[in-house]
């Protein structure tokens, strides 16, 4: 319903072909939107990774999944490397993940390498000019969302009526770990966006550009791809990505302190810069 009907070619990106057995928890490929190619990456909540079956299921982004997603991004960049800024193909991320895998092998091998690789690839694609738009249609949780979504130029989310959920951890777990009464947390959660789970809170912090309704899904994604592309071509990339959302957070009053801190540090450095930058 997002892409042109029957246009999705799984595992194909440019001239590259992904090994079809790899990382079943993630789906990658090329689709068309208004007949233009886009790279599409999404979670598959129904798949189980047979090699990591105790950890990778229900949309978990495991080792293979994150490397597969990173590869898809690098192939996207390579496929369009000769294209001009305004012609780089969009990257559409559909987000529905409960997070990364908590498992022994994941720690032995360092799953942070996989998630970090995917984040770096997305940041690279964004800065090469690809419009990267992420849309949350289900769960966007912790490290999974951090690598699959939070490096995008723009982040959209279906409203909470659809069961979308953005958080680091459920309140019950937070209560246990920080040793605070769950009732107190629930009370505070009603008004303080800074730790309360949910789309609306994230929106207030600038973490989500727009909350959308399901009828508008396709049009909203197209609209944001166009807006992002326009901003890049106009040289206004600082309004995009994590930095842009930081500015949004200040605008929406959800994260006011952040900007004060950054400005203050810069001021303090200005005062002593000559000592460090000229010899």
């Amino acid at each position, binding site marked *: 319903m997002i892409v042109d009907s029957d246009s999705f070619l799984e595992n194909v990106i440019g001239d590259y072909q992904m090994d079809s057995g*790899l990382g079943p928890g993630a789906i990658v490929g090329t689709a068309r939107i208004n007949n233009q190619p886009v790279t599409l990456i999404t979670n598959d909540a129904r798949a189980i990774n047979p090699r990591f079956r105790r950890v990778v299921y229900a949309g978990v982004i495991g080792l293979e999944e994150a490397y597969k997603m990173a590869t898809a991004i690098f192939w996207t960049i390579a496929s369009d490397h000769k294209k001009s800024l305004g012609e780089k193909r969009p990257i559409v991320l559909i987000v529905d993940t409960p997070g990364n895998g*908590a498992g022994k092998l994941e720690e032995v091998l360092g799953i942070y390498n*996989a998630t970090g690789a995917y984040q770096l690839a997305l940041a690279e694609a964004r800065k090469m000019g690809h419009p990267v738009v992420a849309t949350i249609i289900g769960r966007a949780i912790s490290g999974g969302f951090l690598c699959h979504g*939070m490096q995008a130029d723009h982040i959209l989310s279906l409203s909470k009526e659809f069961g979308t959920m953005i958080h680091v951890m459920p309140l019950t777990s937070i209560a246990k770990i920080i040793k605070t009464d769950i009732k107190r947390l629930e009370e505070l959660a009603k008004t303080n966006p800074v*730790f309360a789970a949910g789309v609306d809170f994230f929106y207030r912090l600038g*973490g989500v550009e727009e909350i959308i309704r399901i009828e508008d899904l396709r049009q909203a994604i197209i609209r944001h791809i166009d807006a992002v592309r326009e901003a890049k071509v106009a040289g206004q990339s600082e309004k995009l990505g994590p930095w842009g959302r930081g500015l949004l957070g200040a605008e929406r009053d959800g994260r006011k302190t952040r900007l004060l801190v950054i400005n203050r540090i810069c001021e*303090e*450095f200005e005062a002593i810069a000559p000592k460090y930058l000229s010899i």
Partner: protein
Amino acid sequence: MKDMWTWDELQKSSFFEATARERANGLVDKGSFTELLGPRDRFSSPHLPMLGEAIAFDDGVVTGVGLLGKRPVFMISQEGRFIGGAVGEVGGAKMVATLKLALQAYEQVRKQYPDSYQEKLPAVVISFDTGGVRLHEANAGLLAHAEVMDQLHDALGKIPVIALIGGKVGCFGGMGFIAAAADVIIMSEQGRLGLTGPAVIEEEMGKNEFDADDKGLVYRTTGGKHKYILQDCNFLVADCIGAFRSQMVGVLKMPFVALEQFRRIGTLDLVKEQLALVKLATELRARDSMEFWKHFGNEDPGALPDLKLEEFLKTAKRRVRK
């Protein structure tokens, strides 16, 4: 508090036991560290008091700039003793700002000294001692993680980014992703690098699969020696500030292009290398890191954890990188 230690004393002090401020001061040249947005500015968390938590005037992270020879070093040193070094809104903003300053310094230096900028090339050093996102400020912490990664990505290829891991908390959560993205990782034996802490793994997998009380297991899963063998960290040093400093100085003496060999992620080729390692894991049906150590040529993997550092560095066989 300068009267509590001298720089020379810091060199011999345990990195593990040191405070974030001691590490920051001891890592750069004597007397050269200027803290930015330190405790005097009292920029503490506006959110913690609401949850009945004590605040810290540096919000658990020491940021600032020092010198290594002529080169400005932008330092981020996390305080593991403050809420497990976890990252909230203020601390996160301090990290982002420090990275931004490093990049601005780079641009300035290149403009001012077009022919000799390499001599003054800034560097970023991050001493990680953190569990990741500060749950009391979960959303702000998570957003800060994404911002730090974005800034770090900007820095890669322009200025060296060095990660140091040797504190009590180690480097966990989303901050592990960031350490992984650095050009170089320097660890001590006591340092640990991972995503999920041992207690949570035990909870998820059961005590039979992973006993969080088994220190040996914990260290051979996420500890410095294991990461060194795997080539997941580049250098393994003794637990003292001077040893970390010495290795850092050594790395920064190398021409910038030489640092590429130390990276573990960031390009398609590196992803392929990592995927080969994942494939190896499934082929070996590995259940424990010692099976990898054996595969890489260590005939008596069980003996490795008890070896003293010097002996270990001489005898341990590491994974061969292409």
